[in-house]
Every structure is written in structure tokens, then in C-alpha cells.
């Protein structure tokens, strides 16, 4: 198989990788914020419930969660299985929302209490205090840890092959298996590196843009 043919096949697989990455990110970013609100709620049972959920999700392997979402409904309730890609996306969104939620929480709790109090004595509503005062400061503070998670997500997409979703790594393994050549599996590394390199540049740019003030 020529280099070009391998590249085309891997690019196909990488399309799946990007799709999984993009959908997970777009859905998990806002969902994580909702989970944060739950885990910081003044209503104890809700807080307890959300914290337990986050503990379970963070305490078990993502691979296991992918398997569970795909096979679980059928085994437990005799429901038809979700399409493979959908199952992977659902598991990824749930998993990453929980990680994001903890980063948001750390960000929110790192803002000095005086910021909220200043908003209060100026007659702002709770929502205005959150959106006009906190949110921007939180975003500025969490770009570095978020960058970590986002880059990890790029590589975690390779777990999708556990239920036979052909992302880039499985595409390479298929070639290795069928054609008895080993190098495509290493070539995959270049795809990951290139993409995470672009993301790093974007994240650095965002960090720089947000750095127009200190504090």
C-alpha cells in the first residue's frame, strides 16, 4: 500500500476522530456548567446526588463507560442498542462534562468573594453577578486547565475503537492487520500531533487575548 493510499484511509478515520472531538466539546462545555451549578447548589440532596455522579464517572475508566452505554441498555432492559457512534458520543459527553464541571467549580471558587459582594451592594441580580462579573474572570482563569482536558480529549477519542468505531487509530490497525505493514500505526501519531499542535496555538492565542488585565 502506498503512502498516499494509507494517508487517505487514515484521513477518513481522522474525520471520525474530529467529529467525536467536536461534538463532545460543543455539548460538554455547557453541560459541565450545569453540573457545576448542581454541585454548588445550596440544596443538599441535589449537591450530594451530583457529587456522587461525578465521583462514579471520574472513578471509572472512560473505556468502560463507552462499553456500558453501548451494551448496557440491551443487557439490562432488552432495549435496542444505540448506533455505535452515538453510544460513543453519549459516553464521551457525560464523561467530559464531569471533568469540565470540576474545572468550572475550581474557577468559580477562586474568584474573590468581594467580587460578588460588590455586585450585590450595587443592586445586581444573581444572574447579572454571574454573567457580568464572574463568567469572564472564570474563563480567563480556567483556560490552562481546560487546555489540558481538551488535548486529552483529542487522544481519548482513540477509545472509541473498543466498540468498533473506526476512528484514526482503528483505521491504522485495520491496515496493519490486513496488509501486514507496521508503519501506519506510527504514522497515526503525526495526525494527533498536528491537531493538538493547532489546538495548542489556539489556546495560547486565547490566553494572550484574555491577558489584557491582571487579576
Amino acid at each position, binding site marked *: 500500500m502506498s503512502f498516499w493510499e494509507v494517508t487517505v484511509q487514515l484521513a477518513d478515520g481522522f474525520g471520525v476522530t474530529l467529529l467525536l472531538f467536536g461534538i463532545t466539546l460543543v455539548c460538554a462545555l455547557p453541560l459541565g456548567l450545569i453540573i457545576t451549578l448542581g454541585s454548588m447548589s445550596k440544596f443538599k440532596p441535589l449537591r450530594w446526588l451530583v457529587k456522587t455522579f461525578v465521583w462514579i464517572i471520574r472513578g471509572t475508566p472512560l473505556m468502560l463507560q463507552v462499553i456500558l452505554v453501548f451494551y448496557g441498555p440491551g443487557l439490562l432492559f432488552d432495549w435496542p442498542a444505540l448506533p455505535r457512534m452515538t453510544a460513543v458520543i453519549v459516553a464521551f459527553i457525560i464523561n467530559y462534562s464531569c471533568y469540565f464541571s470540576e474545572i468550572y467549580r475550581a474557577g468559580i471558587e477562586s474568584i474573590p468573594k468581594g467580587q460578588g*459582594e460588590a455586585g*450585590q*451592594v*450595587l*443592586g*445586581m441580580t444573581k444572574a447579572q453577578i454571574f454573567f*457580568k462579573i464572574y463568567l469572564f*474572570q472564570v474563563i480567563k482563569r480556567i483556560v490552562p486547565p481546560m487546555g489540558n482536558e481538551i488535548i486529552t480529549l483529542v487522544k481519548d477519542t482513540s477509545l472509541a475503537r473498543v466498540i468498533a468505531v473506526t476512528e484514526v487509530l482503528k483505521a491504522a490497525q485495520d491496515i496493519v492487520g490486513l496488509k501486514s505493514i507496521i508503519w501506519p500505526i506510527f504514522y497515526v501519531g503525526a495526525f494527533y500531533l498536528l491537531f493538538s499542535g493547532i489546538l495548542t496555538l489556539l489556546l495560547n492565542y486565547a490566553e494572550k487575548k484574555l491577558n489584557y488585565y491582571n487579576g
Partner: protein
Amino acid sequence: MAFLDVKNIEKSFGKTDVLKGITFSMEKGEVLAIIGSSGSGKTTLLRCINFLETADKGSFTINGETIFDAQQSYSDKEKREKRLHFGLVFQQFNLFPQYTAFRNITLAPGLMRIKNSDKKLSAKEKSAIQDEINNEALQLLKSVGLTEKKDFYPCELSGGQQQRVAIARALAMKPDILCFDEPTSALDPELTGEVLRVIRELKGDDRTMIVVTHEMNFAKNVADKVIFMADGVIEEYGTPAEVFENPKSEKTKAFLAKSLEKI
């Protein structure tokens, strides 16, 4: 009838009684300085008046209108409306770091008068209100001597300048009574003067102010009345002359002796 009438405010945190029945009143245009050692409850008193803490007992009125009564519970909206009778300048300034000095001042008035307005405003009305708010903000910046710092971010300003912006920000909400919580305690000594001067100038504008302070000279020279607090009670109350020259309580005497000690 006094302008502000505070009756029997009590507040405890857990088992610690921080305020043990605080009663005082003040007239419109008066400057009241509250002095006392750390832990005497003066900051907590200010925070109760500004609804940042909820007093366990007691009440206060402005112009006879009840603003707070511990026996009643208030919704968030009611609290928001009632607390606007007061403004508060914090020890740590608490400016919003992502906004310029100008935006720090205009943000809250804009939200209150445009977003939180009960009636629907047309686009034209909105921009008229915004223009008015902007003009007022420029006036305020001028009055605290920071016109040329309008577009600076808080991190680009000195502590004294930040505190002056914070004072302008509080004034933009047009409070009946402006409160200061140790406004110069976080400042380098050479910067306290500019902040105290601004506060003294406000007195000339006939503003009613409550200033919690460690600056004895300020209390002596600027305040109309002085309260000395110790262990959650008002130990001494009177004109600066009465409190500083002729204190009655032993605690006041001991405190003043230490505070005015020359090294």
C-alpha cells in the same frame, strides 16, 4: 426623627456574639466615624446595614421608612431594592478587573435603570438613559480627580486610584448613605491621603456617610459624630471632641491611648 435610625442590632456567628444590641441614629448630611479595635464588630455592623449579613435581631429605618426588620423575611428583589439606600466602599476596593474604570462605574446603573426596569423601554429611551449614565460617570470621575484614567483597567491604577474609582462607582448608584469599610487599610501610607481627601470633599457636598476607620486623625477632624465600639457594643458615642478629648469609658481611654501613642 433622625435620618437613619438603627435599633438594637444583634448578630452572632455560631456561638460568637459579634453584635450585642447596637442602637444609634444619625442626621442627614452627617459623617459618622466608627472606630474600635479589630474584632469589635464594626465591620459586621456595616455589613448588616448593607444586607451582606442578615442581623439576627433589630431593625433600621431611613426617614421613618423601615428598611430592615429582623422579624420579617425579604425576597431577593426586596433586598436588592432596599440595599440601594446604602452604598458600600470596601477595604479591598473590589473593582471588576475586566472592566475599565469608566465601565466599572457605568455597569451597575445601566443594569438597574435599563435591564431591571419594570417598564418596557424603547431603544431611544434606552440610549437616552445610557447617555445620562455616561455623563454622570464622567462627572464622578472628575470629582475623584481621575478623568484622565477613564479607560484604564484597575490593574493599571494605584491602590489609591482604585479606591477613588470604587468611591465613584458607589456614588453612581445615588445612595442615601455611603458607607466605607476601612477604606484606607489596604493602602500604602502615602496613598491614604488622596482617598481621605476625596471623602472629606464629599462631606462638603452634604453627603451622609458612615466611615469605619483606623485613621484617628480623620475621625477627629472630619467626622461629626464618633462611635467607639468594643466587644460588640457601643462603648462611647459623641462628637469627636467628646470622644477624643474627654472619653468616659475606661475601654475608650485605653484604646485611644494605644492608638495615639507616639513611637
